């Protein structure tokens, strides 16, 4: 008895569903982001006391941390769909992975960009080989590797499966890379996190940050589904159902 959710696995079935979901996710994303922005700018103090006092520039955290979390989460999603694709040999899972990669790469770049802009006023330099910024940089290389490998191979089938395998190998290596960057000298393994962990951040900061993260999370759903629909259209162009969709939607 094949599990009936496999019937969603056919691109033809998933195309309209994704189409209906995009406006919902887009709307939720916009609302959440606006709330987070308003809360972050107007409901929080201008100065930040506590362990490491910061001036107004700390507000960059409302974008930097969510972007970093999203970049890591989306790599997991990318590797997850790649694994599903390799195991079940379903074309849609590979398309999903391919749709996630660019959005993940954008969030990684944003995390680096905002991290550097936050670093300048607080540490005095745009770039500091701080373990987390460095692992973010390597995560960016993994994304670029996935996208480069996928676009370098013409045969779509091999491109999907080769990039999927690379994503999984990358996923297996991420903890090892993270260890080697965070603890370069195993004799005295520096405290992994100089900065305080999320638990102890002041609630008035934490809540807008979490709202922004949820906003970006539902934004990536919308963006990924939109890109997925484009991929489905271009790859299934020799199927009959694509003809009807095109006839209906072509402006």
């Amino acid at each position, binding site marked *: 008895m094949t599990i009936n959710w496999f019937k969603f696995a056919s691109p033809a079935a998933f195309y309209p569903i994704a189409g209906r979901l995009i406006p919902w996710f887009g709307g939720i994303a916009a609302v959440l982001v606006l709330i987070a922005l308003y809360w972050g700018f107007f409901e929080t103090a201008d100065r930040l006391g506590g362990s490491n006092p910061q001036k107004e520039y700390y507000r960059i955290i409302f974008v930097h941390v969510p972007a970093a979390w999203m970049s890591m989460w989306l790599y997991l999603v990318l590797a997850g769909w790649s694994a599903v694709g390799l195991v079940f*040999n379903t074309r849609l899972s590979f398309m999903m992975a391919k749709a996630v990669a660019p959005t993940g790469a954008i969030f990684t770049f944003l995390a680096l960009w905002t991290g550097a802009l936050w670093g300048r006023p607080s540490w005095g330099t745009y770039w500091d080989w701080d373990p987390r910024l460095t692992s973010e940089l390597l995560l960016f290389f993994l994304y670029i590797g996935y996208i480069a490998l996928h676009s370098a191979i013409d*045969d*779509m*089938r091999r491109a999907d499966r080769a990039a999927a395998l690379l994503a999984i190998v990358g996923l297996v290596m991420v903890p090892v890379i993270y260890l080697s960057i965070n603890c370069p000298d195993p004799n005295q393994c520096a405290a992994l996190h100089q900065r305080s962990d999320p638990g102890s951040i002041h609630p008035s900061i934490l809540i807008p940050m979490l709202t922004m993260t949820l906003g970006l999370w539902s934004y990536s759903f919308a963006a990924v589904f939109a890109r997925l629909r484009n991929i489905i259209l271009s*790859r299934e*162009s*020799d199927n009959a159902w694509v003809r009807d969709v095109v006839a209906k939607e072509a402006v």
Partner: protein
Amino acid sequence: MLDVTDLACRRGDRQLFRSLSFQVPAQTLLHVRGRNGSGKTTLLRALCGLLRPDAGRIRWKGKSIRELAEDYNRDLLYFGHLNGIKADLTGLENLRIARTLDQDPVGDDAILDALARIGLEGFEDLPTRMLSQGQKKRVALTRLILSKAPLWILDEPFTALDVDAVDLLQQLIAEQVADGGSVVLTTHQEVPLTQGAIQRLTLDEADDETPVSGDDPARA
């Protein structure tokens, strides 16, 4: 006995064939025909497990070839467009390695006899890069003489062969089928058999839904 049920393969975004089913019992030669680009090579590569088909099952002796994996490979000899011999090694060295890889190492004299039979007398210890295209193909074909695999899958074996090499190859194929083996073959010429049945499978452009138009096995 090779048994294929509703096989489907795509290349790029083109569906090559769909719901393709046939059997290749012992003592049978399956002659696959079709225009260029109709998916002959893709079909053969799917049959030998190099390519994972989009749908359908391929069974050898009743078990799926994906489960058999290495065991299926032991029973199989695949002959692709490329010769599969190293240019820097001599014919003798190439075949010695081929036999060890197939796990029945054979003495040098057996290899030398095979090379002599295929018409490469005196060329055995020359690096194959110095041989002509036809001679290289003969070195590759020597693997057919030495192989004990019951299933042969040959992709255009007759290209770049001169007349007497073609006769020899036809004789080898006839012997293989007569001894109870099965052969799947793509070629543009006829292969006379002494014993066993010939089946034909024509792969057309994906025009009609059921591309299989296998004639009834012509009793040799």
